[in-house]
């Protein structure tokens, strides 16, 4: 089964109170040098069948109409090449 990831982030002009709260906390925790933090959502979809053009088009539509609220959010659809974790 293939994994497709949809990343949903608030549009840059939209206030992100969560990201702000995280950023403001960092110096107190001793982490300097982070100029900005934005917090969004990550959806991992396990897709049955081949992840071809048609499937991606459907997922794109799903993201647009359902996973993201395009009034305030942008999204990106990515096919995860290697579902194994990159780090950690």
């Amino acid at each position: 089964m293939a994994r497709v990831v949809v990343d949903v982030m608030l549009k840059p002009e939209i206030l992100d109170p969560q990201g702000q709260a995280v950023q403001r906390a960092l110096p107190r925790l001793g982490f300097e040098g982070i100029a900005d933090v934005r917090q969004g959502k990550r959806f991992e979809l396990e897709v049955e069948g081949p992840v071809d053009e048609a499937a991606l088009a459907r997922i794109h539509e799903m993201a647009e109409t359902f996973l993201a609220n395009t009034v305030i959010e942008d999204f990106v659809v990515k096919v995860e090449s290697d579902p194994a974790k990159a780090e950690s």
Partner: protein
Amino acid sequence: MTLDTVKHATETPDAEQPWAELGLKKDEYERIREILDRRPTGAELAMYSVMWSEHCSYKSSKVHLKQFGEKAPESDALLVGIGENAGVVDVGQGYAVTFKVESHNHPSYIEPYQGAATGVGGIVRDILAMGARPVAVVDPLRFGAADHPDTKRVLPGVVAGIGGYGNCLGLPNIGGEVVFDPCYQGNPLVNAGCIGVMKHEDIHLAKASGPGNKVILYGARTGGDGIGGVSVLASETFESTGPAKRPAVQVGDPFQEKLLIECTLEIFKENLVAGIQDLGGAGLSCATSELASAGSGGMRVELDTVPLRDATLSPEEILMSESQERMCAIVEPQHVDRFMAICEKWDVIATVIGEVTEGERLEIFWHGEQIVDVPPRTVAHEGPVYHRPYARPEWQDALQADDAAKLPRPKSADELRAQVLKVVGSPNQASKAWITDQYDRFVQGNTVLAQPEDAGMVRIDEESNLGVAMATDGNGRYAKLDPYTGAQLALAEAYRNVAASGARPLAISDCLNFGSPEDPGVMWQFAEATRGLADGCQELGTPVTGGNVSLYNQTGETAIHPTPVVAVLGVIDDVTRRTPIAFAEAGQLLYLLGDTKEEFGGSAWSDVVHGHLGGLPPAVDLDREKLLAEILISASRDGMIDAAHDLSDGGLVQAVVESCLRGGAGARLVVPDGLSAFTFLFSESAGRAVVAVPRSEELRFTDMCGARGLPATRIGVVDGEEVEVQGEFRIPLAELRTAHEEAIPGLLA
């Protein structure tokens, strides 16, 4: 693009300006040129356009709203009337209460969660700006048909938004309404109200006086939120702009607002502000011009000192931005340091952005260059006034002639029983617990009554048990049949609800939700409703302390039902005397107070059973409402009743079922002489309540009613585990509970 300074505007008198795109009419633009004796700069044009929008200037409604002042009843309680952020009433013991209801209808349709959330945020800041600690919120809501797919999008989002914001602020939600009707399909109504408490000496006003005093902007940074939102969202139907041009919606940060509340209250406590205003619609344009206009008139602002979230914003955009969670204070120079220290304590950003000046001009500068030079009164208080034409719609007569009395009534006891179950389980009459359980009603530890009681009630003094109560009501179906009477019925119902809880009604706020004022029929509805409300308030002795008008609630040519929502505030000297709705003690006697007539126009029964809307709404008798209220309040104070529930939509049977389910006890009812079982159960005659009287108090209670001339009919007794109408039917409580409580989750969960 070069900066459009005042100098530049003077030198280029003929430059084209997008006044039409900003929603201004030709004559309005001409008037601005006249006032300034030159063309406005871009920044000035932005300010005028947004402040002269329907939403901010009340240009269509003003001439009618005037009546609230002109017909205002004598009231010792009124400390601050219409015109401030919210009205203030005296509730005794040195306490003052401020309250107001506002709409956030259009934003909530586009983005239900954020639209509703920022609606709560806005009204809370209004209350805070008066000097009060916010102590409770209410949320009168209206949606399209309960089974419409879009309602599944809008309602959960709105409810989550109201809860998400209000819960995070720590404000108990103590009341509101949820109404479904297809007329709200493309135009849900999201009204939000807030109550605040302070001592008399803590009342603050929105005015900037004292040259040399500093103008401090504090709270969130300014971003690109809702730029133009006020004028576009609230003044025009969004069809006309189309989804592509939807302006950015505002996103709320309730955490920031909570800090703003605590920080502001601490600032008030140390007496550090000379004037204060929240930032809501029209952002800085509104706050600076209103503060200056209400004060001595002069103010100078350095706009480039405003802390920004988005460095690319133009000065016009900064003036228009509706970024949430901001306040503007006028502070004497010697208090500035202390003010800043309190803001720092609460992690709130605060910046001196200008000062009060000698003159009578509002002057705004951008990197040293002047971009605004206006008389603030012309922006904030002397906007256009329209005398819009209005006319009774042609269809009104036919609608009123279509009498609900002609509808077929149940022919058998079985049919009557089935209709009772159908009505109490219909979306409008069903339990709203699925919704209200998403709101914190316990926080602050002072909630005496909350949903599903007749009124919400909070204690405001722990020693003396002084408390306040609030109920909000509005029945668009009644108002559609007759807007004058409909508005009075909304008032009467909220008034009755407050009295049923044991509190004395003091004053009201309202939120007037209507279609397009450019439609003479809608304008007639508006004129009739305001006239009805003003007359009603005069008779009941409850002044209008403030409110809000929301127009253009329509989809294409079709307007929503005229929907005046009324919030009545009451006071109770000792909350231990409050009257709940629950029938809990077997053996207590049930009395119906008031007269029951053949009144089914606009009723729940006509809607649920026949899908019918026609005829006349129930008649209003405000003297009777007053008498009923006095009896309910005396009975509560003197311990003569253990429960009371007002009768409204759904009639007696609806009230009895709710009281039985609340208390977990059944009721045995006897149809009084002279009434059919059907009329007894479903009539929606106004001026009525049902009460549970302990046997030991019966004589005292009926004597009191008799002496004061209020009809009181013994209709049964609290008993058993079913609702029985003798000679007609019985329905076990469990069956009623299922019908009543599972309807909404079944539709929405």
